[in-house]
């Protein structure tokens, strides 16, 4: 692949980007802490309410109250159930992220992605995207643990064999990009759906935040794929020569006005057993 790039400017851009990434990580961790605080508050409230009701409804009173006592506890249970559901969703998400890290790590061992014949932008994208997925996995697992769950250290059970079958057939950058597009899209679709599944605003914010980033990965990969298919790898550069980009490159990165969720993974798929 031809490598036409202003390396000094590219290095500067990478430094600026690294600074922004660091800031965002700080903010992400702060957001995560806020979320955990909120969840902890909710759980503490639920626990206090349940204990208060339990004390008020002594065994005698409970016996007298009959179904009413059970109803009170039943009303308290859904919040705990929400936490269990949240943990499951977070573990599934962490499994997707772990798989994405594995894919980019494997891709970087290939000469046309991480080796001497690689396009510098593609190589940097693979490195930085792998790190971003690791950050996402860490965030999801941290939240799961804060909610009393176990971290998910494995990879998504449905897509892992698909990736394992695909890797030996990879012949060039286009194959890697195609595989990465599939994974990024599944991740984004899953998290878009998860925004509606999780129980707190902070957790919705976390999933929304990461869904947007996976969608951006997909947009970039679609643009790269279009340029590779157009035999214009020299335009995969930062900065690129915008005047030479094919017209369709301006829109190929965002095919849907509303991000689909038809391929979202089930919430329980990657739950730790």
């Amino acid at each position, binding site marked *: 692949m031809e490598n036409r790039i202003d390396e000094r400017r590219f290095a500067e851009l990478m430094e600026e980007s690294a600074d922004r990434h660091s800031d965002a990580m700080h903010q992400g961790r702060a957001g995560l802490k806020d979320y955990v605080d909120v969840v902890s508050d909710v759980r503490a409230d639920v626990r206090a309410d349940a204990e208060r009701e339990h004390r008020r409804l002594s065994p005698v009173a409970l016996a007298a109250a009959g179904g009413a006592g059970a109803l009170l506890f039943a009303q308290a249970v859904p919040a705990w159930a929400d936490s269990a559901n949240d943990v499951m969703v977070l573990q599934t998400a962490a499994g997707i992220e772990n798989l994405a890290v594995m894919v980019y790590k494997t891709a970087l061992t290939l000469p046309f992605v991480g080796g001497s014949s690689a396009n510098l932008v593609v190589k940097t994208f693979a490195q930085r995207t792998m790190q971003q997925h690791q950050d996402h996995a860490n965030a999801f697992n941290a939240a799961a643990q804060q909610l009393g769950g176990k971290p998910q250290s494995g990879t998504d059970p449905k897509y892992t064999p698909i990736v394992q079958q695909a890797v030996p057939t990879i012949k060039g950058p286009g194959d890697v990009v195609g595989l990465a597009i599939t994974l990024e899209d599944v991740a984004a679709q899953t998290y878009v759906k998860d925004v509606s599944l999780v129980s707190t605003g902070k957790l919705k914010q976390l999933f*929304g935040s990461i869904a*947007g980033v996976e969608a951006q990965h997909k947009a970039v990969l679609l643009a790269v794929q279009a340029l590779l298919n157009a035999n214009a790898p020299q335009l995969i550069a930062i900065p690129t020569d915008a005047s030479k980009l094919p017209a*369709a490159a301006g829109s190929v990165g965002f095919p*849907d006005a509303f*991000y689909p969720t038809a391929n979202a993974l089930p919430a329980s798929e990657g739950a730790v057993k």
Partner: protein
Amino acid sequence: MSEQGEMHISESELRSMTDDLDEMHESTMPEVRRTLADWGANLGQLTRGRRASRRGFLLGASGVVALGAAAACSGGTSSSSGGSSSAAPSRSASPYTGDLRVVALAAALENLAVTAYKGAQQAAQAGRLGTVPPAVVTFIQTAMKQHADHANAWNAVLTGAKLPPITGAPLTITQQQVTMLNSAKSVTDVAKQALALENSAAQTYQFAAANVSSPQGISTAATIEPVEAQHAAILYFVLGQYPVPDAFIKQDQVLTPSALTA
């Protein structure tokens, strides 16, 4: 031989790919419309005093982002302070309350984006931006159409609730954005302004998904947010910047309902 002539896939084939994607986009619309129609059918409870937020939307004016400042951070040319020169009406004076105020904000923000892209298109056609790359022309056309789709979806919720649709961009930041657009001298100026708007839109939807009460509102905001983020990624690339600068979409350019002047 031109660049296009050297390609294995011709421009027309690439355009055909885009058309295919357009069809895919059209196929997602009915599902979204159904979701929003369901929402419209249940709007009685939304209009009966449900608060706009759990916490975030009570930020008030201090939470309104100055997009001029945001654009400046992205390298924009405006030196204006951004924010508001016109106060938002009191909540009691506005017909848009609760979650519906967020819907109205979203519709106004989408209309502002359509207006900005339309203005950029007109400026390009008038030759005020210099030579405009074909990819930028396509970007403007497609992004503008998607923003119009978003605005239509949100307005359908408002009309379903027997409220007037948002036809303009009644936001405290609109005048400043128009001024910036009118002073744009190049594609880069316009792209930087668009980038600030797209980032703000993505962040606002992320914030909305975390703060509105209606499940349909949450899912709709969640499906639009990644699309605005994708627009931003392509704009970063066109501007010569790394296209996915952050591991987490930030929350520093959120537009809160207090920016709505309707």
